């Protein structure tokens, strides 16, 4: 599925909704909601409850809206109920994640309420919102309040209350959006885990954003090219490293605290004179600016931000040099497979990990990990592209196991899903591979191998929270053992040592470290040396994993 759509030329111009809307107007509203969600996607993703960056609610809701929109993108239908049914159908087929499923139910109820109406007036919109709420609530035995469901309920109630004052469709929309905003802000009062994490509900926020996008369109406010600032934790700077174009020789990242509130429009405009790939993040009054500049301009962003505030940190990297060394290392030598042989497909979160899987005899790699799960289609494509019909897949992440199973059920090839929930489990299973062995025996061996290894992960908490009795402050280093949060501390070294202790490493023989892209080689060596001092008799291996977010993935066997 394409991740972007051509935007309807009418978006961004003020629209007079009048008293009734038809199918084409509904389509434009859906497009506006989707576009606005896309702009705010990272912000919604950042509203995750767990202190690990694993939020994908914004992405899931956006993919669901895009599936809905692609169903109607070519449609010239003027009948509003037919249009709504098509939207609901598209949302149903493309629903991703829990929030996506609920969103598809909201659309389903909406469409049902319109029955076979040609056009929709204010009273019908009220009925449709009520039916959206009813349908969404029917999907669950014990509805949890403080979620997207609550927001849908408050929207319907507000619309019902406003209608007797006979407002226009536009006024009604405005009160709906205000109600959604208020409901989202109240979610932490209803759901303690949100309050604990200091966030509002992400699904509810996503729904608000969709409606707000529709309202912005009605009011003629712009939806694109809008200056947005993402939370610092949501900045994915490593992704901007993928490709470097001419004039992007240096990457400059500056942290600063402005003397006075930042005029973002002006800030962006000035920066775009200096370089490209501009990203700005904000947290607690602290700003982080990221930019790619040609060699001769490499000090300009720093000089410029120093005029605006106190610069606290500067990082400059030579991208060209980095790309060259990346390029020389990035050649994967996948295991060639012949018809009749057994091939293994592995999901890998980083280039280094992909290389290690390849060296162990994997025949195809699907990229994906904690924050971006590969789709069923991507995994299916990997199956279909292999010249053999006996395939084993290692998902290597708990969130990808289902997609792998779905892909396995869709192909005619014989596919076994080994439910590896982490990279170490996947590698442990891969060691049992024999390309000419008996399929069932290998699958059984691999399944057994999953239990032989403990998985440790070290990352930085993106927010303060208390889970499993472990208190975590935003910015602290946290250690997870087999997916469970077990330790929060101030240094990566400490986290590693505590983790190894809790994993009963003294009873094991081998420790393997896979270091991520956000930690320096010097620090890695220093930490591994201190681990060696504590476990002198253990076999200790060190590999470049190249995974995002996680400083270390640790395998203990």
């Amino acid at each position: 599925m394409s991740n972007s759509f051509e935007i309807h030329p009418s978006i961004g111009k003020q629209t007079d909704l009048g008293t009734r809307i038809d199918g084409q107007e509904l389509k434009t509203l859906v497009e506006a909601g989707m576009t606005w969600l896309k702009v705010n996607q990272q912000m919604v993703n950042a509203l995750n409850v767990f202190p690990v960056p694993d939020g994908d609610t914004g992405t899931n809701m956006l993919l669901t809206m895009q599936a809905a929109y692609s169903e109607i993108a070519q449609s010239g239908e003027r009948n509003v109920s037919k249009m709504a049914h098509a939207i609901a159908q598209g949302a149903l087929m493309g629903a991703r994640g829990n929030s996506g499923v609920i969103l598809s139910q909201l659309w389903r109820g909406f469409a049902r309420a319109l029955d076979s109406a040609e056009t929709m007036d204010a009273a019908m919109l009220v009925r449709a919102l009520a039916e959206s709420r009813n349908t969404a609530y029917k999907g669950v035995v014990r509805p949890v309040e403080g979620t997207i469901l609550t927001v849908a309920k408050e929207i319907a109630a507000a619309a019902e209350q406003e209608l007797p004052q006979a407002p226009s469709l536009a006024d009604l929309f405005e009160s709906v959006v205000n109600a959604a905003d208020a409901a989202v802000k109240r979610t932490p009062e209803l759901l303690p885990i949100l309050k604990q994490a200091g966030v509002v509900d992400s699904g509810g926020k996503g729904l608000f954003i969709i409606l707000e996008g529709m309202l912005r369109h009605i009011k003629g406010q712009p939806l694109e090219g809008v200056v947005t600032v993402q939370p610092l934790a949501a900045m994915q700077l490593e992704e901007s490293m993928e490709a470097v174009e001419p004039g992007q020789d240096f990457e400059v990242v500056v942290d600063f605290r402005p003397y006075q509130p930042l005029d973002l429009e002006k800030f962006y405009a000035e920066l775009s004179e200096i370089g490209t790939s501009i990203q700005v993040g904000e947290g607690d009054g602290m700003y982080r600016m990221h930019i790619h500049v040609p060699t001769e301009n490499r000090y300009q962003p720093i000089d410029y931000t120093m005029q605006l505030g106190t610069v606290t940190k500067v990082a400059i990297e030579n991208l060209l040099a980095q790309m060259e060394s990346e390029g020389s290392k990035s050649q994967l030598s996948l295991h060639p497979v012949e018809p009749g042989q057994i091939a293994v497909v592995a999901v890998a979160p980083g280039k280094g990990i992909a290389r290690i899987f390849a060296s162990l005899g994997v025949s195809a790699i699907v990229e994906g990990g904690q924050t971006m799960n590969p789709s069923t289609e991507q995994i299916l494509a990997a199956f279909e592209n292999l010249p053999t019909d006996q395939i084993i897949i290692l998902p290597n992440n708990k969130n990808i196991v289902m997609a792998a199973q779905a892909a396995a059920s869709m192909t005619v090839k014989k596919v076994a899903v080994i439910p590896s929930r982490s990279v170490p489990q996947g590698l442990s299973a891969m060691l049992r591979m024999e390309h000419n062995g008996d399929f069932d025996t290998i699958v059984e061996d691999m399944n057994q191998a999953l239990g032989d290894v403990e998985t440790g992960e070290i990352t930085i908490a993106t927010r303060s929270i208390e889970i499993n009795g472990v208190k975590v402050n935003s910015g602290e280093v946290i250690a997870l053992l087999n997916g469970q949060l077990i330790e929060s501390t101030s240094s990566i070294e400490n986290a590693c040592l505590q983790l190894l202790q809790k994993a009963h490493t003294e009873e094991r023989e081998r420790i393997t470290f896979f270091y991520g892209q956000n930690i320096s080689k010097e620090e890695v060596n220093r930490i591994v040396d201190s681990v060696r001092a504590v476990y002198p008799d253990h076999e200790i291996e060190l590999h470049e994993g190249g995974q995002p977010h996680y400083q270390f993935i640790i395998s203990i066997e």
Partner: protein
Amino acid sequence: MKEMSNPLGNIYVSQRAIATIAAQSALASYGVVGLAAKNLAEEVAQTLVKDPTKGVELHFDGRSIGVDLYLVIEYGMRITTVASSVVDAVRYQIEKATSLPVKYVNVHVRGLRISDTD
């Protein structure tokens, strides 16, 4: 099954207790409208005594837990997505409550409940 021990004694958590956690977290998942009896015998037994572990089969191999769930899902939803959320929720709740690893959660969709026809 034995869960852990400390110098003062051992802690045992029964399979039924864990099955109850699985049933409750499945029912709290969006899209799940009920648990279904695994077979006729269980269905008959259900009419006599209400069992909080209806629709859950638990397997314990001494190290890790396996779960089979028999569910009724609301008609009109993408079943694979609903099932995948159930798997995540059940696994998370069991691991959180018992700190025992969950090896697998299989979802068997036994039926769909139709509240509204489109």
